[in-house]
Structure formats: C-alpha cells, structure tokens
C-alpha cells in the first residue's frame, strides 16, 4: 500500500515537472495516432459513404467483412504489417520496420474498417431520408457521397473519435511493428506495458494517468459535439 501511494506521488511529480521523456512519449503517441486517424479517415469515410448510397451485388459481403474487421485483434494487424515490412517481406526494401511510420500504418490498418463500418451505419439512415430528394435534384450516387459526409458531419466526428480512441489505446500492433525503442518508437501504451513488467510503477502510472486524461478529454469533446449537432439536425 505504501509503495502504491509513493508510486502515485512520484507519478504526479513526473507529470508536474513536465518530465522530458514522458513528454516525448506522449507527443509521439499523439502524432502516430492522429496521423493514422487522418490516413484511415481519408479511406474509411468515403468508403463507408459509398457503401451507404450504392446497391450492387457483393455489397452485403463487403459490409459483413468490414463489420468482422472491426474486431481485428491488434496483434494480428501488427503481425500482418510486420510480415509486409520485414526485411524479407514485399515492402522490406522501404526499411520502415521499427519506425513511427510502421506504427502509423499498423494503426491505420486497424481503424480503417472501424471508420468505414461506422460511417456506413451512420450515413445509411441519412441516405434513407435524403435519397428521393437528391434524386429529384439529379444528384448521382457519387455526388451524394460528399453531401452525406457533410450533412452527417457531427455524427461522423463521433465516429472519428471512436477511431482515435481505438488507435491510441492499442498496444499489440505498435509493439510488434514499432519495437518499443526508447526515444524513437516508444509510445504510451508500450511504455506502460514495459515499465509495469520492469516494476517501474511511477512512470507507468504517470503515463496511464495521461492516457486516461486524453480519453476523458476526447469523450467530453464528443459530448459537446453531439450537443452542437442537436442545433442543426432539429
């Protein structure tokens, strides 16, 4: 008990002092997850919107596969990216393994299906409502995609936050493809896992608290956005 209390105290002191290695880890985590989110959004949002507005043979299969991929275990995603990027893999010559870029790729692969599947769900309801009116205006399905993405913007922000939450909280994928190299590819989750196993509880706790803080902040933001959405959706 004594140990735990002093570990907490040390952790708080680390945060308060703005410890450099802590700051570095936090910033890298944010950079990796936000970049992954951006990449995944560029692919996942239009893909989800397209699935919401089109009807073609095989669409159901894609939807089912996407929904299944939402539950893709991070370690499996990490393993696949590892195989692609490893020296003997097809993308080995790029030399990306154990770099932050590899971590971005892994997290993007992990959350793209989540963004696409959630986007489809959110926009399908909107499309039910809009389809006839947009057809009356002469809008093609391709033209309807940006319309739905814009009109669903508040709901989609919550989708993005879900993706960000998933990316920043996972350990397995970044551990495998990043290698948890101190000062280079060490992020909050991998650092927490390592420090805990080494018994350095203060650092693990400090990072854990910051991670929690980020998660809470993200959710507060999500709530605020939902409230703002109410003004427009009526």
């Amino acid at each position, binding site marked *: 008990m004594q140990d735990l209390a002093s570990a907490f105290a040390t952790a708080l002191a680390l945060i308060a002092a703005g410890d450099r290695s802590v700051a570095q880890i936090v910033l890298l985590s944010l950079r990796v997850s936000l970049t992954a989110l951006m990449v995944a959004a560029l692919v996942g949002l239009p893909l989800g919107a397209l699935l919401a507005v089109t009807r073609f043979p095989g669409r159901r299969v894609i939807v089912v596969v996407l929904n299944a991929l939402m539950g893709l275990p991070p370690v499996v995603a990490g393993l696949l990216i590892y195989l692609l990027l490893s020296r003997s893999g097809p993308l080995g010559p790029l030399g990306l393994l154990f770099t932050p870029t590899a971590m971005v790729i892994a997290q993007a692969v992990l959350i793209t299906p989540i963004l696409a599947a959630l986007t489809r769900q959110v926009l399908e309801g909107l499309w039910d409502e*809009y389809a006839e009116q947009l057809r*009356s*205006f*002469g809008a093609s399905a391709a033209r309807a995609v940006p*319309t739905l993405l814009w009109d669903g913007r508040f709901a989609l922000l919550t989708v993005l936050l879900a993706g960000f939450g998933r990316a920043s909280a996972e350990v397995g994928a970044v551990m495998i493809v990043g290698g948890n190299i101190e000062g280079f590819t060490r992020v909050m989750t991998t650092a927490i896992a390592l420090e805990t196993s080494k018994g350095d509880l203060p650092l693990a706790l400090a990072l854990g608290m910051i991670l929690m803080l980020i998660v809470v902040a993200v959710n507060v933001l999500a709530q605020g956005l939902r409230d703002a959405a109410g003004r427009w*959706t009526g």
Partner: protein
Amino acid sequence: MRAPDTILPLRTDGLGFTAGGVPILADVDLTIEAGAPTLVIGPNGAGKSVLLRLLHGLLAPSAGCVAWDGPAPNPERRQAMVFQRPVLLRRSVLANTLYPLRLARIAGDESEMRARAALSLVGLAALADRPARRLSGGEQQRLALARAAALGPEILFLDEPCASLDPAATRAVEEIVATLAGRGTKIVMTTHDLGQVRRLAGDVVFLHRGRVREHTPAAQFFAAPASAEATSFLRGELLW
C-alpha cells in the same frame, strides 16, 4: 411567354404502378399541357403522390410510360418537385436553397442571387442563416417550395404544399403558385382543399382507387362532374 423550346406536353400511356403485387395505379392516360395549374385531387390513398413520383421519374412505371412530347432535350433537368413531407438538408436555409443550384452547375453569383430571390418570394429572406431543420413545419414547407422554384423549372410538381400551413400562409403559397404559373411555370399540384382547386386550377385530375376518374377543365369539374365518385367527393361524402 415561354420560348417554343419546351418539354411539354407531358403524356402518359397506360401508366400503371404495382407495389409487391398490389396495384396502386392503373391505366392512367393523361395529357398535361402548358398553361394554368393542373390540380390532382382524390381521397387519401387514391394514388396522388405515387402519380406525381411517376411523372417526375422517381418511380419506374410497372406498366405503360411517361413521355415528354415537347422538342426540348433533357426533360429530367427541367422539372422539380416539392414532397408532401419536405426533406431539408442539415444546413442553413440559404445553403438548402443553393444546393440544387450548385448541383445544376449554375455559377456562384447567379445562384446566390436566385436563391435569395426565391427566399424573398416565400418570405424567408430574414431566416437565410438559420439552421433549416429548426424552422417550423410551415416554414419548412415554404423553404422546400423556394428551393424548387429557384431552379426555375419548366414544370413543378407540388405534393400538398399547403398541408400544414395556416390560412394566411396558405394564401401566400397560393399567390406564389399563381406568380410562378403567370411566369410560365407549369404547376402540377395535389391538395385536399377544394377552395384552393377553385382558386388555382386550370384543369382537374380526379383520382379514385388508383384510377383517373376524370380529367376536365376546372369549371366543368365543379359544375358537372361526370362520375358518381366525383359528385360524392365534392359533397364530402366519398370515403377512400
């Protein structure tokens, strides 16, 4: 006056619509000419909304066809429709009005001018920056009308545009409809308000149970309805 370049008359030939084996409309032979508004009336469920959707091209006929007999090309781009339940985008009032104009590739300045003029026409100019979905039901209906009118269509389908309007707003919409008709826009409109039919109609299409029972000039329809159903409908006795 409208140039000879026109998509009218609109003609249907044996037009029918079946949903899940249930006939909704059958044997509709209509010719809709340019000129004063055509009012489509009939009891609830008669098939008025379905008929307008078929004419506008939103539903594919199960039988027969819809033909635009005028010489002008691209009839689908020269028509607009206001639905019985208006669908407003989650944007401002002005952005809603601009949306179809941008879609029709009308230049920025021109579309802004047209949108604001249309909003003034329906008395919503002051609400241009409000979220459209926060408008009252009647205001939403007027916005939907402005949005369609801004397109400057040659033919405008209006499905019960006055359904949730107060008497003053109903009069206002009737005036707008008369103004548009005066400018040469062909109006095809449904209503349950017989007074409105008297005030606006050039000709009347009376639908009952998915069939056109009458298509006659308005004066004749009120003076001497040809069918027994129309007679009892006018007396307020015809149920579905």
